């Protein structure tokens, strides 16, 4: 199965193109047939990881996302599934290994609830995040943990659904950025700000981390009525 075949029974479909980055949506709704198919794509190490997940939903999301990622990368790289492996950076960001050699393609995966996203591009570091917008009783705890004072002020002007939507937009943009950078939460997420225009509803912008101003990132808010999502892609 390939990206092009996705209309014929696959659980992933093209979602968006942002410059030279492609974003694929993965349907993670419960489906035992699909999960069975997905498991046939996984290697022994991945199957062991699949078994370690304690919740059925978590197992399903991992299997469907990893199988879709394998199919997409095999299609892009022109390799067989058996030739594709994954390595990981010090902070756990995965990269593709084909025939024992690291491949330069950039990719990133995120999932939440019934939605997964895979983003890939030929070059430039890349991060993607998706979150289903669920009501959270601990929203205020999260706000003070991950948003700057300026972002918190912006959020304080909102209420109800508008507040939830803005929070999830800010979270996904920030998480996409730290995933793109590949250093995990070693970066203080409250120490940088989502561009003001995006905080006020503009869907695309550029961004530079204060401590690395020479690197420019393209940001895109990919959210829709079903989920919040964002992509960050390094520009040259």
């Amino acid at each position, binding site marked *: 199965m390939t990206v092009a075949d996705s209309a014929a029974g696959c659980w992933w479909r093209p979602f968006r193109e942002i410059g030279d980055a492609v974003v694929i949506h993965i349907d993670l709704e419960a489906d035992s047939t699909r999960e069975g198919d997905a498991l046939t794509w996984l290697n022994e190490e991945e199957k062991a990881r699949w078994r*370690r*997940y*304690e*919740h059925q*939903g*978590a197992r399903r*999301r991992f299997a469907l996302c990893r199988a879709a990622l394998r199919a997409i990368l095999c299609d892009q790289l022109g390799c067989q599934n058996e030739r594709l492996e994954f390595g990981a950076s010090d902070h756990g960001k995965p990269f593709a290994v084909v025939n024992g050699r690291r491949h330069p393609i950039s990719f990133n995966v995120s999932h*939440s*609830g019934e939605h997964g996203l895979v983003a890939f591009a030929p070059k430039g570091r890349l991060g993607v995040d998706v*979150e289903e917008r669920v009501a*959270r009783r*601990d929203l205020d*705890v*999260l706000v*003070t*943990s*991950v948003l700057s004072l300026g972002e918190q002020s912006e959020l304080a002007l909102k209420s109800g659904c508008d507040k939830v939507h803005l929070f999830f937009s800010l*979270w996904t943009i920030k*998480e996409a950025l730290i995933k793109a950078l590949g250093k*995990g*939460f*070693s970066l*203080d*997420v409250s120490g940088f700000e989502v561009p003001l225009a995006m905080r006020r509803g503009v869907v695309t912008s550029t961004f530079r981390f204060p401590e690395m101003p020479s690197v420019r990132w393209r940001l895109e808010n990919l959210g829709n009525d079903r989920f919040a999502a964002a992509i960050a892609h390094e520009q040259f």
Partner: protein
Amino acid sequence: MSSTEDRIRQLVEENLEVDGQPIAQPINLDSNLSDAGVSSMDVVAFGKLVNEEFNANLSVEDCAKLPTLRALIDHLDA
């Protein structure tokens, strides 16, 4: 006074869930929250609760990097 382990178990039971359900019972202290299916957003919020409960100073990175709940308990008891 309850042990650190008891208090962590209670915090997990009362605050963490996956797909609207409590995480696996009995709680496996040797699994990490990611393997339990807990999202990064929940990990961040849980870390904040742990800080409040134990008057600790865990960063978001600390929360994300602790490999297991047992490692968290050991860290808090150290």
